[in-house]
């Protein structure tokens, strides 16, 4: 199924022979051989070393929302290809291919639902749709979601993962940064909480707009988070980047994120933060790990 991404590191030929690929996986971080079902149960966090494998939008909806229930918005939106952009192939072909492969119309899903019984507005990006890039549809869906948050006084949560602005929509992609930020300005003034969750990887125009405009920034462990991508920086400064550069832990150290939260504790953590910002009491019976 689409919701497991293969680890980046390739198994050697001998490993591959030994491992039925649908049953076992090797952790790309610690090399531990993991039983697929156990990994899945563990939200694709390696039980041995805590390595966070990338997961999809649907997984986050399921892990954050009570009962996995939601109402989705903006499913009808598609890019209008404003530049009639053609590189090695026409942009509409890329879009159609992504939609066929992915089942989604663009790189973000926007829903309302409940998180530990708090009514929230939630956006989750998906890196597998054209690199999670932000074009007109991502911008418009997020804009509409923020309007819902404003109208219904729902705290906003955006789970980001993105390579940045979508080149094929040119300047209009860049303008989505200003568009979403203008709506966040209104949310800010209305004092409606916004928790930005940064997952691997979040770079470019998404980082330089809504992902860095949260009241609280929560990062998953080991996520690549930055403005410029590491390759661009290396080409510019012509030297190798230090280990751990632009990872969550680096951002925490430099004061750019508030906390690093294990995926398995993400929901409880966000709930606690929201209850503080909404001035609601902790539920008496709740024993939450975050």
């Amino acid at each position, binding site marked *: 199924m689409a919701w497991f991404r293969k680890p980046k590191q390739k198994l050697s030929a001998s490993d591959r022979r030994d491992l039925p690929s649908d049953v076992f996986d090797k952790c790309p971080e610690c090399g531990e051989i993991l039983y697929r079902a156990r990994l899945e149960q563990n939200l694709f966090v390696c039980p041995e070393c805590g390595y966070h494998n990338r997961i999809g939008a649907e997984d986050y909806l*399921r892990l954050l929302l009570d*009962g*996995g*229930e939601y*109402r*989705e*918005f903006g*499913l009808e*939106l*598609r*890019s*209008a*290809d*404003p*530049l009639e*952009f053609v*590189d*090695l192939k026409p942009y509409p072909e890329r879009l159609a291919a992504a939609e066929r492969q992915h089942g989604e*119309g663009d790189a973000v899903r926007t829903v309302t639902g409940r998180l530990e019984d708090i009514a929230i507005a939630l956006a989750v990006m998906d890196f597998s749709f054209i690199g999670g890039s932000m*074009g*007109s*549809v991502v*911008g418009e869906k997020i804009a509409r979601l923020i309007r819902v948050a404003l109208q219904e006084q729902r705290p906003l949560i955006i789970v980001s993962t993105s390579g940045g*602005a979508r*080149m094929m*929509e*040119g*300047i*209009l*992609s*860049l*303008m989505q*940064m*200003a*568009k979403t*930020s*203008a*709506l*966040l*300005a*209104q949310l*800010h003034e209305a004092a409606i909480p916004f928790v930005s969750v940064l997952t691997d990887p979040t770079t470019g125009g998404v*980082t*330089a*707009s809504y*992902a*860095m*405009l949260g009241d609280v920034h929560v990062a998953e462990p080991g996520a690549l988070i*930055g*403005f*410029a991508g590491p390759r661009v*920086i290396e080409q*510019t*400064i012509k030297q190798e*980047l230090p280990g751990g*550069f*632009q990872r969550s832990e*680096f951002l925490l150290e430099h*004061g*750019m994120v508030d906390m690093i939260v294990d995926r398995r504790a993400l929901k409880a953590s966000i709930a606690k933060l929201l209850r503080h910002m909404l001035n609601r009491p902790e539920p008496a019976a709740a024993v939450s790990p975050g």
Partner: protein
Amino acid sequence: MSPAALEKEIAELERQIASLKQMADEHELDVGAELRKLEVKLERRRRESYQNLSAVERVQLARHSKRPLTQAYLERAITAIKELHGDRAFRDDEALVGGWARLNGESVMLIGHQKGRDMKENLRRNFGMPHPEGYRKALRLMQLAEKFGRPVVTLIDTPGAYPGIGAEERGQAEAIARNLREMARLRVPILAVVIGEGGSGGALALGVAARILMLENAIYSVLSPEGCAADLWKTASAKDLAAEALKLTARDLQRLGVIDEVVPEPVGGAQLDWDAAAAQLQAAMTRHLQALTAVDPDTLRQQRWQKYEALGAWVERQSKPRRSGKH
């Protein structure tokens, strides 16, 4: 014809005209007819070639080594700048300048990217590529203007925000993002002008305004043609294709609804006549600023929000119902 070839031909015509004049003086000849012919040709050549510039040629003009930079306009269109320095947190970023200035005698907060003229100045100005502290200085100055009810004018001319280790450590993304949000909230008029290169987020961080002007040969893009070529065509040599595809010229951006007015440059480009370029810019800025200062703060913000909320190009496909997930 490339701007270089065009310039060569124009220079040749200018040389011919000069030598003809000199010859006429020395030998007391009547060369009026010949001279007029050359002058007409020169003028026509300038206009013809200039009107049909390709996107690539505009990119070259926008980056022309003799193109007027922020400083040039500060010495002409906007006068008596009292430059202010520093973000009050880390350092003063000289890739971005700002301060109190006068436009037709009116006090405004002027903020602009500043490239260097030569290698020495470019090292100091970091080629007009700000670090986070530059954007934080800009925000500080905008909020200073707001405090005293003065309008903000920004001049945009940058290849982009600097991609480096220090920039990442100090939160380049956060600095840009914060400017986007705070510019949206600002209770005084903001007039943004793209005078040269509008390089991606590094340009946008000074560009959230209800009115955006663009000089005729300026460009404004989500990324450079070179970067786009490398990413999408997988070869830097496709930069001309990328420049066309990105729709980054002033006319393109006006068509897409991103900018509000194209400010004409002298024929051949602003690099040929800084004074004329500055005069045209000053006239346009004055007109737009007058219109903006007549609007009350709440409406100003509303106009800004409405402008950005409308930007984008999407279609709505009917029939797909709202999904209610249950697992």
